[in-house]
């Protein structure tokens, strides 16, 4: 299947024609609506909030933010950013309630620190993995984006970004950049292994009554199994147990102890702790 990301940069790919097609297609609208409601569920907002929509396009996702009923904690006020003028033009014609910006999220997020309660992004951030000119890099664009986003969210805020990574490299590049910016990050995958699998990057900003990361977010949700890569790594470490007497780790430990006492200790090398070869 061809990926629009591989064809043209977003501001050129979504021209008047593509933008209209995208917004009119009932299939796309359906998928977008489902993903937005899932993202809202993950954001778990209790009261009318101030939300940033990154890559808002024609406002398909923003529209749903304005439509959340008061019983569910809405309606929310939102600001949308998108790089495609044609998409924003369609949004204008559809008279969405949010405030719109023509901006490149890879150039940063130009808001005061602590502005937003939450951020949402539907099918947008994989575009950041493409550098369109030689003076920018994908890593640099991702870094600027996540640093800006981290600063503009208030403490205890959350961001949910649904994205389509091309492969595992892109997936880890995006989540790695988010973690470097300071977010607590986790990925939620819906319908894994199927063609319609959807990835949600759930980002949390520490403080303000919210503890932990995505595992706290999905706590209490049905049909979610948690695969914690960190726990697995810790288990492997623990399974090895303390170093046994005579093995390399034990020898190195003893040598360190002796060196600390001021004794003369032979230098360690790759041969330390190995058996001598049999002489004959």
């Amino acid at each position, binding site marked *: 299947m061809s990926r629009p990301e591989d064809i043209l940069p977003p501001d050129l790919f979504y021209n008047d024609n593509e933008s209209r097609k995208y917004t009119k297609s009932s299939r796309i609208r359906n998928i977008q609506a489902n993903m937005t409601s899932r993202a809202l569920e993950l954001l778990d907002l209790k*009261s009318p909030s101030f939300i940033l929509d990154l890559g808002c396009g024609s406002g398909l996702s923003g529209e749903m933010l304005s439509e959340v009923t008061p019983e569910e904690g809405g309606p929310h*006020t939102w600001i949308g*950013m998108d790089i495609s003028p044609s998409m924003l033009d369609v949004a204008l014609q559809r008279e969405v309630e949010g*405030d719109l910006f023509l*901006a490149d999220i890879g150039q*940063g997020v130009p808001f*005061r620190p602590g502005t937003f309660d939450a951020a949402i992004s539907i099918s947008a951030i994989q575009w950041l993995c493409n550098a369109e000119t030689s003076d*920018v890099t994908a890593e640099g664009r991702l870094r*600027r984006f996540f640093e800006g986003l981290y600063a503009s969210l208030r403490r205890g805020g959350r961001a949910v970004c649904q994205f389509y990574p091309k492969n595992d490299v892109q997936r880890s590049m995006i989540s790695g950049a988010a973690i470097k910016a300071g977010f607590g990050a986790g990925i939620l995958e819906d319908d894994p292994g199927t063609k319609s699998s959807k990835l949600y990057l759930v980002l949390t900003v520490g403080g303000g009554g919210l503890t932990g990361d995505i595992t706290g977010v999905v706590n209490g949700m049905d049909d979610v199994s948690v695969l914690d890569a960190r726990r697995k790594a810790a288990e492997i470490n623990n399974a090895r147990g303390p170093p046994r007497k005579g093995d390399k780790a034990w020898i190195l430990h003893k040598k360190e102890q002796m060196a600390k006492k001021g004794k003369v200790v032979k230098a360690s090398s790759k041969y330390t702790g190995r058996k001598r070869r049999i002489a004959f």
Partner: protein
Amino acid sequence: MKVITANFVTCAVKECKTSPASFPLHFQDAELEQQELDFQPEFIRNILPRIDWEALRTISNELGFPSLPDSKPEGDALENEQTLRDLHRLLLETQVTEGKLTCGNCGHSYMIKEGIANFLLPSHLV
């Protein structure tokens, strides 16, 4: 662009991030429009602590509104529905449809057309 947004947006140029003069951005040649929206007292109460009152006074002066009170309404004043309605009218219903936003530090102007601000930067400013 709504007035509430103008109270949060800063200059996107990298050098301006550290300068206090880059906020608020100053309106020039602004054309205004009123858009009716549902009144949400709860949202106003939620957002008010985050509003920079000095900046809001500056902005409303530039847009030619009667001057606001010296200090931000707090505590009991938030129970007064008329205060909240006035804030709702100013923050959410007032929109700048055409004009320019200028940074006080670098002097860069962001154009506003049909209510959409253009924050795309040439690559040497990023």
